[in-house]
């Protein structure tokens, strides 16, 4: 599933990101690496998402949220 499809509050283990190499590297550098557990904390306007990764919060636009793929760990 993608982060865009993920319900609020549901933990997801990141698998990969369908982005170009530079963007994927930057995601890893800020902590959004394969294996990292994130959860959606807010659905925003225009399809954007706010995700939590540990104590950090990241805002993603709709396209980026749809490009991040992961595995759902538990039901919401």
């Amino acid at each position: 599933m993608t982060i865009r499809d993920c319900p609020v509050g549901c933990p997801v283990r990141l698998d990969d990101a369908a982005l170009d190499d530079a963007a994927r590297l930057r995601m890893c550098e800020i902590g959004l690496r394969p294996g990292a557990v994130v959860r959606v904390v807010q659905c925003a306007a225009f399809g954007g998402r706010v995700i939590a990764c540990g104590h950090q919060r990241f805002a993603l636009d709709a396209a980026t949220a749809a490009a991040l793929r992961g595995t759902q760990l538990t039901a919401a």
Partner: protein
Amino acid sequence: MARVALVGNPNVGKSTLFNLLTGAWQVTMNAPRTTVSLEIGQWQPGGLGVELMDLPGTYSLIAQSPDEEVTRDVVAGLGTGILARRPDLAMVVLDATALSSSLYLLAQVRALGMPAVAVVTMADVAGARGLAVDTATLAAAIDAPVVTVNPRGGQGIEVLAETVADYLMEHRQAPDGGNAEALVDQADQFFDWVASILDRAEIHHAETVTASDKADRLLLRPWVGVPLFLAVLWALFQLTTVVAAPLQDGFEWVITGPVADAAVWLLGRAGWAGGWLESLVVDGVLAGAGVVVSFLPLMAIMFAAIALLEDSGYMARVAFVADRLMRTIALDGRAVLPLVIGFGCNLPALAATRTLPSARQRLAVGLLIPYSSCTARLVVYLFVAQVFFPRYAGTVVFAMYGVSVAVMVAAGLILRGTTVRGAGSEPLVLALPAYQVPRVRALTRSILLRCRGFAIHAGGLIVALTMAVWLLMSVPVTSGYALGEDIPARDSLFGATAQALAPVFTPAGFGDWHASAALITGFVAKETVVATIATTYGMDAPDDAGAPPSDLGEQVRASLLQSSGGSPGAAALAFMVFSLVYTPCMVAVSEMRRLFGWRPTLASVGASVVAAWVLAVVVFQVGRAL
């Protein structure tokens, strides 16, 4: 003198720490051959003289923007010009709530052979979330000094000064250079190192719902976030127009009233009363100083509003909410703030570009701001519309704002293919800082420093330009007048220049010296355009609402009827379009020069004048044909 660089992720309190350490002893400059700004200041830890550099915030030294390239080059010893000398030490700021990305940057800094002292910030926010960072354990894990500091309150500054002084006393040798290109291959290794440090320091992420999460549930909700964002924009607009205007008038009065009176009295006592020197001092130097001083309260209000938005954490939410809108012209969501503020006044709008995260974005927005129709231009529209289109004046004025937005979008689309090429297609991944209560002391310090920077660096050019205009108006070109006398506009060098310039506007229908004279003073301040028109006809200026005396209206109509060959309405529209698009006032130009340097400023001025002329000619020629 030792050189120390402040390095860190964006929004970790790095600049607040820099302001705290250096106080007023700092200058803002652009990195050589770039529009990337950085601050350099003086600091004296333990009595040692240190040159402290606040480098652009970055998540990585694998640079993906000009700002990040500057940070990488300084740390790697690849800088040029004033940045050629490599720092002796890096103070790497670690966000206690985001140690993973902070430690990754620290690993890169050290991989380049740069010794580092780690400065932990946001410890209070982390503590409130139950995340305690034990500095001793962390220091042992990373094998480097670690100091916890609160830049907003000043706690920990003495320990930091002591730690840095001790290091610099013991290590006098400049660090070896490192290979920045190898950082890409080392990324995975650094990720593993960060994970091991977090384990050793027993820093584990708990799944908590924070107060900021609860606030965001409301403030970022689709049907709340957008209206709230619009309300913030409205409030900013009101602050920079309605609230600032009386303060500006009061500040200017002090200079042009009591200070000018005192200068006249002093010159009189020295035997210089009534001559060209008095005219130069009062109408040149003090008039320019009055302009600078009058803008100080406006700038202070703008800087305070921006600092509040940033310090509270809401600015990052603005970027998120407006991202979709601004992406159409390849700009960051935060660009919407300066662009909207520009409709009040271009000057604070230019100052607000500092909220943008990259030099390219700041420059692109800075180039668009002059096309946002400030309230000073409104006076021109009202006057011209009431003279030429009295029955449709409101509609014509409204249409000018539509033209302003259309020109900004068109210019934005052009920039998308040039200055910000490739932007707008990048993924938005924005770290959202926790909401915090702004600290008055840190805010006040930031506002004072920025106002001082404006007064010193833009003020000099403003006074120089005011004196140049004084010279044009004070030099007679006909006999019977002396330098500095009250010369009729037509008989001054100013009038001669306007007459020489008038034929340039013949294709736009307003090739008349009264119009070109008004446009020349419009460069000084758009507010003076209508007053200049009245002066050149030897009449009093219209009232504030732009309602012209009937005689003045008749004379202006007669002039444009003649210059346009019988199409005064089309010429009037062309004049309004030219007034909208051509160079903003000298204060805005001075601020552009301060922020971006001479080349982009001159390019902007040249492009706007050419665009204004072309659009005015098109409007007139099409209007005449209809």
